[in-house]
């Protein structure tokens, strides 16, 4: 069977806990905020806020599929936005808000190109110099944050043309936010890239067993380069959406999201050692985290309480999955020797 592909039973049992948590959270929020949480304006608001977290989480997940990580993901999003904004300012002689469509598209192309140069650098460090991804991307993150601060002198750049704001805040299809439409399109596209394309197949193989992948005539370096390019592409896309949503760019926007995306990957069942993790899991995890943060925000709770709660939630999920993990369908399948691979069991430490 292809990696990433499972029997229907396996797939259902894998996503069931997440679906259960999501439903429980929605019910809880609906009870705590009667008539407010499920109101249409709040749901639209949720759909508007979700894409930034979800796209960053998917970018993080892509980097984890080979056993890597991308700590530079938020820095890259900000960097793309800043390069785009500065190019727009430069092309219009300082009046970015009046930029025409050709100028806007050209600026975005420059921002994207800058981000891709960084992606190539990161891929080179990891694939050719074999620097551990956590360190390579940490260095790149500090470099990008630094460049962003130097380019903006620490200031916020604001005032963009309506087209840019429409990307983040507008809605073309009835009331559905454009950002949400972009997210859905990305998920569909990534489903084909990860689960139906040769690249996706190679990526999962590389993560499951790098040596076996190499001996199967897979050019692991090229796969790694493409993987980080994809991860940074998602970051750049997030950067464009953030430009529209905040109508400004700044060096350290959404910095805390780096760790939240790692948390989303953990919640979504992505194996940090690579080779295992489904798109459905990470999307559900992002929706859960956004539901919680929006709901708690509506409740008017101290935002730092939310920080503490995120920590508590991870610990609870760890404990619950440890207790129930022993009796889940998947464990039974594995125990009966019906599992698809033993590498999975081997990667866990001896009990």
């Amino acid at each position, binding site marked *: 069977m292809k990696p990433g592909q499972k029997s229907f039973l396996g797939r259902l049992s894998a996503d069931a806990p997440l679906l259960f948590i999501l439903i429980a959270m929605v019910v809880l929020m609906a009870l705590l905020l009667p008539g407010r949480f499920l109101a249409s304006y709040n749901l639209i608001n949720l759909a508007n806020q979700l894409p930034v977290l979800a796209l960053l989480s998917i970018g993080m997940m892509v980097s984890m599929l080979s056993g890597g990580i991308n700590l530079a993901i938020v820095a890259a999003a900000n960097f793309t936005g800043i390069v785009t904004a500065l190019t727009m300012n430069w092309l219009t002689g300082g009046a970015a808000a009046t930029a025409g469509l050709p100028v806007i598209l050209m600026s975005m192309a420059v921002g994207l190109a800058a981000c891709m140069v960084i992606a190539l650098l990161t891929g080179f460090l990891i694939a050719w110099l074999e620097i551990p991804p956590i360190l390579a991307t940490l260095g*790149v993150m500090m470099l990008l944050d*630094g460049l962003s601060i130097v380019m903006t002198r620490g200031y916020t750049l604001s005032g963009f043309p309506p087209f840019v704001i429409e990307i983040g805040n507008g809605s073309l299809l009835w009331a559905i936010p454009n950002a949400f439409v972009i997210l859905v399109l990305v998920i569909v596209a990534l489903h084909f890239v990860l689960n139906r394309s040769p690249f996706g197949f190679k990526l999962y193989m590389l993560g499951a067993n790098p040596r076996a992948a190499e001996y199967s005539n897979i050019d692991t370096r090229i796969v790694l380069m493409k993987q980080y390019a994809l991860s940074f592409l998602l970051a750049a896309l997030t950067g464009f959406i953030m430009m529209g949503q905040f109508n400004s760019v700044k060096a350290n926007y959404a910095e805390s999201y780096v*760790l939240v995306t790692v948390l989303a990957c953990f919640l979504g069942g992505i194996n940090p050692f690579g080779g295992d993790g489904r798109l459905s899991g990470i999307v559900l995890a992002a929706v859960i985290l956004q539901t919680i943060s929006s709901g708690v925000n509506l409740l008017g709770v101290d935002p730092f309480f939310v*920080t503490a*709660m995120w*920590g508590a939630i991870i*610990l609870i999920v760890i404990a619950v999955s440890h207790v129930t993990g022993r009796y889940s369908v998947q464990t039974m399948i594995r125990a009966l020797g019906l599992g698809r691979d033993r590498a999975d069991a081997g990667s866990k*430490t001896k*009990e």
Partner: protein
Amino acid sequence: MKLFQRSEFYLLVLIALICIFITSQNPNFLTLQNIYGVLRSASVNGIFAVGVLFVLILGGTPDVSFPAIAQVTQYVAVLALIAIGGGNIALAFAIAIVLGAVMGALNGIIIQVFRVTTIVVTIATFNLYFGMLYVLSRGDVLFEVPRPFHDFGGTLLFAREGANGAVYGLSLLPVLWLAVMIAGWFILRRTMLGRSIFAMGGDEVSAVRIGVNTFAVRLFVFAFVGALAGVAGIAHASLVLSAIPNSIVGVELEVIAAVVLGGASLFGGKGTVTGAMLGVLLFAILRNGLVLLNISSYWYDVTIGVAIILGMSANAWQQLRARRNQVHVAVEGEAPR
């Protein structure tokens, strides 16, 4: 291992080159006054680095919760000393060390019992500790720390008068850092416990087979990291003379990078106290150099990023070359490398 194959050696060369360059641009760099200042400002990160080193040698992903632990212990210790109206610095250290050890031990217990990778657990406890500190303290800044912190932070050894009339000397903070490093070196290199930590980092299953009590060792390592975070928290309060709930968090990735540049492996079983010290010193010297060269502090992150990337690249390049030159003889039954 040969000297020129060690990452410490490359780091030392890099530091020497940077020092030569800075001195050539601004001779004030190599004055005793400036060196004391660099050591003083590097102490807090240096103490953290010893703890980070222990976790990296133990294996698995790095701990990121130590700044949150330092933040909480610092705040609690300052509050406690304010409450009793003075006290002394030993009491502050005792409170911070005990509280820090308990908070760190919790990480160790969760990791051991639930078998989850360190970074996930410590991200969770980081958020939990830091969030609770903010909620319970309502973000109140304690601008006035009690007398003992002033005394501890202000004591100068070898004090003398500088050219501009200001008195300078070696602060107690680098002495504290040195003591922590000696303790760390002693545990790692001269005790059974240290051998067990290296053994677990090399291969946990083998460690279990030779009779290492993995739970006890892991519990010790994380309690030790927590205790050191407490020490660093008090040192930080003595340095800045205030307790601000978000003044320490944010250093975690820089400290981890410093320790890894110093040769500690992210795969466990490898690392030295000297390397961790050199890594911290490199960053402190870079920060100081930017000031002396009159370069805007905006460039600090760029410099650190370039330093990490260059340092790691040189290290990786050297390892790749060593591997290429190595003749590998496959022993029967051995897994191919």
